[in-house]
């Protein structure tokens, strides 16, 4: 959360810097824009990039849905940055996309490793279809625009049929009854809720958290020896994610932020910069 929140801040500054466009014109004021965990601090040695996985026999079905949703979201984001990152001509923009894409790859790896490797191919397929059903169901439940809702509804029906097909093949090729693997009823719909207070609280409490091998720990910003060595390499020649903030500050006197609810919750350090190196 804090790392992607920081990406929003970096991209918002790029948008203002290159297009003279305020991000709030796009996202409104539902989310604040300010530094999260600084991007240079997000780089991790691969040894620090894996997490322990859940157990398929005891995991709450909602936990599995959450993990799979995040894997999908992070992978889509990674793919987008990697595919779109070569479109801008500005080298700072290209570098920004590239650096953040690398972090998104870390996120994909991290979340993917939460999935139980004991889940078989057909079980995974079943759970993928179930996830899509759950998401479309959530959208149908909450959509207020009739035109958009009319799009979600047939897609929900399609996903239900695809779920049935996955269940049929699960029975044929693995001898398992899908009804025994899935919850009796759909879990409560995923809802969109106000996030400002939540993000501020997480920022205040966890911005110093870091990874120590398989675990995320309260480390007051200190990284493992291997990640420190890794960051010294990838940050050694500077960071485009830092450059974009410096360039915005040089041109306009400060970085771009959208802090509707007051000062940054972590005021004891300059959150715009990082422990990483500068170009």
């Amino acid at each position, binding site marked *: 959360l804090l790392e992607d929140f920081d990406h929003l801040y970096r991209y918002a500054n790029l948008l203002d810097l290159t297009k003279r466009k305020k991000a709030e014109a796009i996202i409104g004021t539902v989310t604040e824009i300010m530094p999260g965990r600084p991007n240079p601090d997000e780089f991790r040695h691969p040894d620090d990039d894996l997490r322990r996985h859940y*157990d398929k*026999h*005891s*995991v709450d079905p909602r936990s599995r849905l959450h993990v799979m949703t995040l894997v999908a979201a992070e992978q889509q984001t990674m793919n987008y940055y990697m595919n779109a990152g070569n479109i801008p001509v500005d080298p700072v923009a290209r570098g920004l996309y590239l650096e953040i894409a690398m972090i998104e790859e870390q996120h994909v790896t991290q979340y993917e490793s939460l999935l139980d490797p004991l889940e078989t191919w057909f079980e995974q397929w079943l759970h993928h279809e179930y996830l899509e059903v759950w998401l479309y169901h959530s959208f149908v439940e909450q959509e207020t625009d009739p035109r958009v809702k009319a799009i979600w509804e047939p897609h929900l029906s399609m996903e239900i049929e695809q779920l049935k097909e996955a269940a049929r093949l699960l029975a044929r090729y693995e001898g398992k009854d899908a009804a025994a693997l899935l919850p009796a009823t759909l879990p409560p719909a995923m809802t969109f809720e106000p996030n400002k207070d939540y993000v501020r609280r997480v920022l205040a409490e966890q911005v110093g958290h870091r990874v120590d091998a398989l675990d995320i720990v309260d480390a007051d910003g200190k990284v493992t020896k291997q990640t420190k060595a890794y960051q010294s390499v990838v940050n050694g020649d500077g960071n485009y994610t830092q450059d974009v903030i410096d360039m915005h500050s040089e041109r306009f006197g400060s970085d771009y932020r959208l802090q509707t609810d007051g000062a940054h919750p972590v005021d004891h350090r300059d959150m715009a910069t990082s422990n990483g190196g500068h170009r």
Partner: protein
Amino acid sequence: MSTTETDRTAMPATLLETAATGGRTMPISMTVTEPARACTEEQLEHAMFPGAGLNVAFIAGTLSGFLAHERAGACLYRVAREHSDNPMLTGKYEEFGRETIEHIAIYEELVTDLGGDPHYVSPAARMIEQQGAKLLEGPVSLAGSVGLVSLETAFLEAVVSPSTSATTTGSCLPASPPTCPTKPPPPCVPRSPASNPKRTNTSAGPPTPGSSSPPPTPPTRPPEDSPDSSNGPPTRSRMRSASAGAAGARRPVDAHGGFHRHGLIDDAAER
């Protein structure tokens, strides 16, 4: 079919363990679970054979592994049946599949009677489940690349190989009985498949995925008409006291994975 067999067939059996069925596991190494669904060694020792000095984690883990084996077998027989055109084979697969589901119910009952949780999925059980899944994955993955005979043979081998493995394992175990606890059998044991002459298991080894063999018979199991098997329903206290007594009279099997956690020789017991 006897009344007893009919009752067994009607036993509920959990074929797939999930949170909804009450699934629990032991957090170990890369595997985590919610605290409420975690099963620790201390919890296992408190539930099964408390104070007996036995390596309860191993025993519970092994029993859970037997359950995983049977569950994998149930899936294997279903799929093999689905992919076979040979009436003789399909009939056997169906028969073995039915028996395997009975085995699951029997193991669940056994674990429950021992004070354990039949929904506990041990690390060993997870490994056995994976092995069973991969055993099935081979013929399924290549089903479109081979002829029917090759596919039938592959499924047949998928069924036979674990049975062979079970026999091999069983041949290694006769050395163990003298060191196993000589407790009276758990009251549920006489109702095991071994009590059915048609399904008597001559190998003492643990089953492996796909095997149609019934659960292993404890080496010290008395005849079915022994007093222990006719003294009414089992009670947990009876079984625990029997187990505790046995622990003091016998050597453990091995240090790490055996019945006793403290080493090859239980010095206290020996003295």
